[in-house]
């Protein structure tokens, strides 16, 4: 009886094996070149930058090779003893907050009978104006059987670091500093026009919540939104 059972099992397994071999290989890999064309864009604007933040960040990446998968509905994730790679990339970024004056008009200005002037400014916005990678101080640790970090890998980590700085803008308090500094920039300008300092009131639309601040971060161009 046991022999019969074994024969049936073997036949079924053979059938399964044959059917697996006959499955056609239909997978195709399509690679596309996503490099945008090199262009120069010129745009007229009217922005008063009031605040500058210099940010320093060390981007780190721990590159561990892992064997991942599932076998008989059991997932596994094993760290492979192939040697690790680590990299630390120091970077500096400049964030600037500005007030867009291109739509400024008499609607933003209110003059009272007692000689006071109240200016309501548009929402301040934040943009990353530059970033610098400290190439000389990049530290790499590469295991014996691993290859060095490629330029493509390094630029990928740098872009992620840049995105992390942009994401952290709401926590930096740059919007409130920008509002205070807007007054510091504009009050001397208005006093030159003949107003007394104590008669000048600079105000903004409203108090900003976290969601408002996120909407005020200028992502500059579409590359950064991915």
């Amino acid at each position, binding site marked *: 009886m046991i022999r019969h059972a074994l024969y049936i099992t073997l036949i079924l397994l053979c059938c*399964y094996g044959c059917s697996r071999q006959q499955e056609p290989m239909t997978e195709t890999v399509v690679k596309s070149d996503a490099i945008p064309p090199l262009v120069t864009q010129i745009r007229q604007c009217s922005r008063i930058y009031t605040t500058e933040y210099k940010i320093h960040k060390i981007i780190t990446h721990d590159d561990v090779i892992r064997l991942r998968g599932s076998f008989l509905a059991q997932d596994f994730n094993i760290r492979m003893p192939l040697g690790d790679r680590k990299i630390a990339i120091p970077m500096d970024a400049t964030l600037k907050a500005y007030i867009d004056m291109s739509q400024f008009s008499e609607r933003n200005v209110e003059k009272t009978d007692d000689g006071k002037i109240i200016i309501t400014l548009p929402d301040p916005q934040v943009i990353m104006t530059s970033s610098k990678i400290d190439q000389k101080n990049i530290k790499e640790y590469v295991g014996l059987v691993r290859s060095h970090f490629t330029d493509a890998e390094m630029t990928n980590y740098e872009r992620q670091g840049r995105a992390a700085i942009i994401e952290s803008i709401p926590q930096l308090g740059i919007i409130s500093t920008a509002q205070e500094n807007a007054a510091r920039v504009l009050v001397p300008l208005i006093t030159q026009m003949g107003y007394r300092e104590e008669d000048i009131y600079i105000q903004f639309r409203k108090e900003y919540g976290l969601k408002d601040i996120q909407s005020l971060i200028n992502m500059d161009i579409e590359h950064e939104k991915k």
Partner: protein
Amino acid sequence: MKRNNSIPLQPILIAVAVILLILLVSWIYRNMKSNSIEITADQEIDITPQQIQSIKDIGEWEFLEISDEEMVDTTRRGILSDDHLVRIYYGTMRLGINLKQVETGWIVPRGDTIEVTLPKVGLLDRDFIDEARTKSFYESGTWTAKDRESMMRRAYQRMLQRGLTPQNLQTAQQNGEAQVRQVLQGMGFKLIKIQYKD
């Protein structure tokens, strides 16, 4: 002679064994379909804090923005083959006036007339390359920090040449005049005279 009426056990046992086997094999087959194995390396960076190094109040009035992309390549000659590195750099040059550099009396009001003397339009910030946005286009061979810094300097010079032209400076100046006029009109001045400092 006594007749044996009992049901033979052997065929029943075989049938049960076959059913169990079919169930077992179907279970294995079903689960083997979802089997997968891959060697992966995580490409995400670690979560690290950022440090504010300085906060500065500035007063830069921007009139023209020039966004540029520059492809820079470098080649190292070898005995058997050459090594290449091609990178694309991004930068934005901002032209305008620095309100911190204006002299006393740059705005002179006379009734409903106002005279404004603006400082010369120039590049507001010499750090305009967004190096963290750089794209690696092609790489063969191993390259050092010195090579990358050299490429960055070349990209910087090319962007300056392309962006800081007399024509762009003139456009910025013209737009600056229009923007300052618009703000002063909003403040209630009817006659506005604007000139740039020589």
